[in-house]
């Protein structure tokens, strides 16, 4: 063809063949290398790759419910939805934004911003109720994700808020029974191991490795919804009528410590635990200055710093019956009287002549009745709630025996109630107690205990002398209705003799039927009780706590109730304002509980 074409020589062929062999050899070596990677090292790389691909997703376990003694659900779960968008899967960002904005009632611009944000997954809203979530899912827009989740729900909003407590965003108990029994209620979360792509998006249709969650156990408590509800209404009414700061009512079975109701008004809404309840503003019958200061407080709320806001919340969540202490005042005379009888320092026939005051060391301690009660026997000294008489009874008991019985009746330790944050008794050291201290302690002043402690002392006095443990939890049940655990409490410790207790019950009946507690008397029922009016510290500010403890029946006490009115306006005598509350309570719950003479 042309002279430039040369013949292909044997050496060319030989060299080509050699080249070919080199290539084959190299490929063989590469195959060996691949064999090494894919057989010998396969397990290692497979494990590393799986680690990279698998994502663990938690499946929340349903939290156990809280039910009252009759099975009324006080804390339940409801299904809520979390709405999010997966950026890369959204096909119609405009329509998706509009739909979400209108369904969720959100600002269109805000939603648009979130939808258009370049992130793998963007949360639009959480805690959306299931109906809305289902509706959004039905639109069927790609890239819109509706995840279902459980949220704690309290059907009765404010009912027993300070007892039940609430849960946080992770469904963990924060205060109250929710916190105390968190481990029981919580259950075990399950998990789903899903395969994801490099952006963390789950791969559709891939196999899931699922570990089912175990639901938490239901907690049955001794609280009775009906009693709690009625007590709360009474407390609210009393607070309103007396324009008080707060009102607490505790109802308990003195025989075993089961608490039937524990009210602390104002109660907060458990479904909105982070919303401060407005301070009660009492327009009428208050002095002008005070109304102003109330309004001033209201304006302050808006400029609160974060820390004081948290303080306010904490204060709102506080259960005064157990978290705070107070000077019990005259109801504590139950203790002094019981100790005096038990130690035989005083007998029922002993009399005392009250002239309106008593001299202790160099101090003059006045009686409530400044003109004096005159000659009175032991029973009447209790009925009259006569301070000078009790100073005498206390003196006869003596410091040592007084403290011995404080110990026996559990005043120096905690009651052991199953709620978090029980406050301890603030008491004199025994070696520092002189004449004056002993005298004031005898009628319930100069030391502080919690209301629940006071109620337990009263229970011991009337139940035959046994020390009970106040409590709520009765048992836990799993989702299949099998009892998981029955709670037992210490309540057999004999602190005083049953005879002394019987005597005290009769005396306390006299208090209600013929003495200072007569406003708690209901015809046809046998009721005992004791009143108290304690002036708050510092003295002289005109702030009082009025209280009353009543029980029924006197022969066989099945119920004991306490009412505390904190800072009532106007009349502040416990016998006048607290005793009627207990009477109204008893009028309803004694027939309900079938307690009669």
């Amino acid at each position: 063809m042309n002279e430039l074409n040369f013949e292909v020589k044997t050496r060319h062929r030989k060299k080509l063949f050699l080249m070919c062999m080199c290539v084959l050899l190299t490929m063989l070596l590469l195959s060996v290398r691949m064999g090494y990677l894919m057989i010998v090292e396969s397990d290692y790389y497979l494990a590393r790759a799986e680690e990279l691909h698998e994502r663990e997703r938690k499946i929340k376990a349903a939290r156990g419910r809280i039910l009252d003694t009759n099975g009324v659900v006080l804390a339940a779960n409801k299904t809520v939805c979390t709405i999010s968008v997966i950026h890369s899967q959204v096909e119609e960002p405009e329509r998706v934004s509009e739909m979400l904005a209108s369904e969720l009632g959100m600002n269109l611009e805000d939603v648009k911003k979130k939808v258009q944000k370049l992130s793998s997954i963007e949360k639009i809203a959480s805690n959306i109720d299931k109906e809305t979530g289902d509706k959004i899912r039905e639109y069927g827009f790609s890239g819109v994700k509706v995840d279902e989740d459980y949220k704690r729900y309290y059907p009765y909003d404010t009912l027993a808020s300070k007892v039940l407590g609430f849960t946080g965003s992770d469904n963990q108990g924060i205060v109250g029974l929710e916190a105390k029994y968190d481990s029981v209620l919580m259950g075990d979360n399950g998990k789903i191991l899903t395969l994801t792509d490099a952006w963390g998006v789950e791969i559709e249709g891939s196999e899931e490795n699922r570990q089912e969650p175990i639901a938490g156990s239901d907690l049955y408590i001794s609280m009775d919804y009906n009693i709690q509800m009625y007590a709360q209404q009474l407390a609210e009414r009393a607070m309103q009528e007396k324009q008080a700061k707060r009102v607490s009512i505790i109802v308990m079975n003195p025989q075993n410590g089961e608490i039937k109701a524990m009210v602390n008004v104002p109660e907060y809404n458990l479904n909105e635990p982070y919303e401060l309840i407005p301070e009660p503003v009492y327009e009428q019958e208050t002095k002008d200055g005070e109304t102003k200061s109330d309004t001033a407080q209201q304006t302050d709320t808006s400029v609160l710093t974060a820390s004081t806001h948290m303080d306010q919340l904490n204060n709102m969540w506080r259960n005064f019956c157990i978290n705070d202490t107070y000077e019990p005042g005259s109801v504590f005379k139950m203790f002094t009287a019981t100790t005096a009888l038990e130690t035989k320092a005083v007998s029922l026939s002993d009399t005392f002549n009250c002239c309106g005051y008593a001299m202790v060391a160099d101090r003059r301690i006045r009686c409530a009745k400044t003109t004096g009660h005159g000659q009175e026997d032991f029973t009447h000294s209790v009925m009259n709630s006569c301070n000078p008489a009790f100073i005498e009874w206390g003196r006869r008991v003596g410091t040592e025996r007084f403290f011995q019985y404080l110990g026996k009746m559990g005043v120096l330790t905690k009651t052991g109630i199953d709620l978090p944050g029980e406050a301890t008794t603030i008491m004199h050291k025994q070696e520092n107690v002189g004449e004056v201290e002993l005298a004031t302690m005898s009628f319930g002043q100069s030391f502080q205990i919690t209301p629940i402690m006071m109620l337990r002392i009263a229970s011991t006095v009337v139940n035959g002398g046994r020390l009970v443990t106040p409590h709520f939890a009765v048992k836990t049940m799993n989702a299949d209705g099998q009892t998981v655990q029955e709670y037992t409490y210490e309540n057999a410790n004999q602190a005083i003799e049953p005879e002394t207790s019987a005597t005290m019950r009769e005396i306390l009946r006299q208090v209600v039927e013929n003495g200072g507690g007569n406003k708690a008397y209901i015809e046809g029922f046998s009721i005992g009780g004791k009143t108290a009016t304690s002036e708050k510290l510092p003295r002289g500010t005109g702030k009082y706590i009025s209280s009353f403890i009543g029980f029924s029946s006197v022969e066989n006490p099945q119920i004991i109730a306490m009412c505390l009115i904190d800072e009532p306006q106007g009349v502040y005598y416990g016998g006048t304002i607290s005793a009627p509350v207990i009477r109204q309570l008893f009028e309803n719950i004694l027939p309900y509980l079938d307690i009669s003479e």
Partner: protein
Amino acid sequence: MGRSMGRKIKKKGKRYFDYSLLFVVIFICGFGLVMIYSTSSYTAQLTYGNSEYFFFKQLQADLLGFLAMYFMYRVFDYHYFQRRWAVAIFILSIISILAIIPFGTEVNGAKRWIYLGTVSFQPSELAKFATIVMTAVGICAIGNKINKLRYVFLVWLIIGGLLGVMVYAITSNLSSAIIIFGISFVMTFVAYKGYKIYMVLIAAFTAAFAAFYTWLTNMVKSGNMTDSFRLNRFLIWLNPEKYMEDKGYQTVQALYAIGSGGLFGKGLGKSLQKLGFIPESQNDMIFSIICEELGLFGAICVILIFVLMLWRIVHIAQNAPDLLGTLIATGVFAQVAIQVILNIAVVTNTIPNTGVSLPFISYGGTSSVFLMAEIGVVLNISSQIRLEK
């Protein structure tokens, strides 16, 4: 040998045609399309909202490639290269590489493409083709002088050297430069009479590399190694998982893919590493996905098919009617062999990472079109083999 100089051999009915080569090429292209769809559909859906995006682009390129192949086989007698066509292609490739400087488009931080309207074009692929035809024509032009060593060097310098250096300097595409040098090395090796100089060169290179490797591993072991930019590539090669967060990421991900394939793989389409873990897994790293989905068995089948293809090309080179045909076929053989070997070596981390595409399988239009055109040339050579009898 019995063959005389190439004469007109296209006689009716006596035409030789290497069907095996054609079918191997068609098979590999088809397999490549399947793998491109498999590797790219997920990410294409995410990025372009169209899972067939890369598949269709590659299909277009493959169809264009078949046209080019048919043209080179049927219309373009490979002897035309001697009529200035080789020089024209050589000059055109130089111009196109130079054109990158003003007109190049940067993709992923590398300026390697020229866009003509919507069609992208990678000059380095043309440079490989130019190297093959220009070296072949050059060696034939200088005739017996090729047996003098200085002419061998001259051929290296003027053709492979010039194009290789330009590709490396302008597009900083080291792998293409290496392939261009490799093609010229293999072609002159076949054309040149002796063996000695090649043995010396290979021995020298091996010794130098062994020395470098020993030095490097000692440095790493003693902890004297500071992360220097130039040596990074080698440090990653030695211990890719240490650099996983950065430059070693791709290598490690490829190893995960290969390792998780096992003996028979996860099954076609079931790779997880392609879901964004290996960036652009349809490109240079496609072989790792083949390993993951089809296992060692599938990977070795792919290698065997390449071996079959190379064997057919070598067969045609052996029997070509003249030296020009032999050399061109050798060049094509060299390019395919070097790319396959380098690609698999990189993916398995046998050598330091450098971006080499797997011929006919990796996504890339320019590469496919030129490779098919080269196969067309080889088929044209085969059609001029004079059948005896």
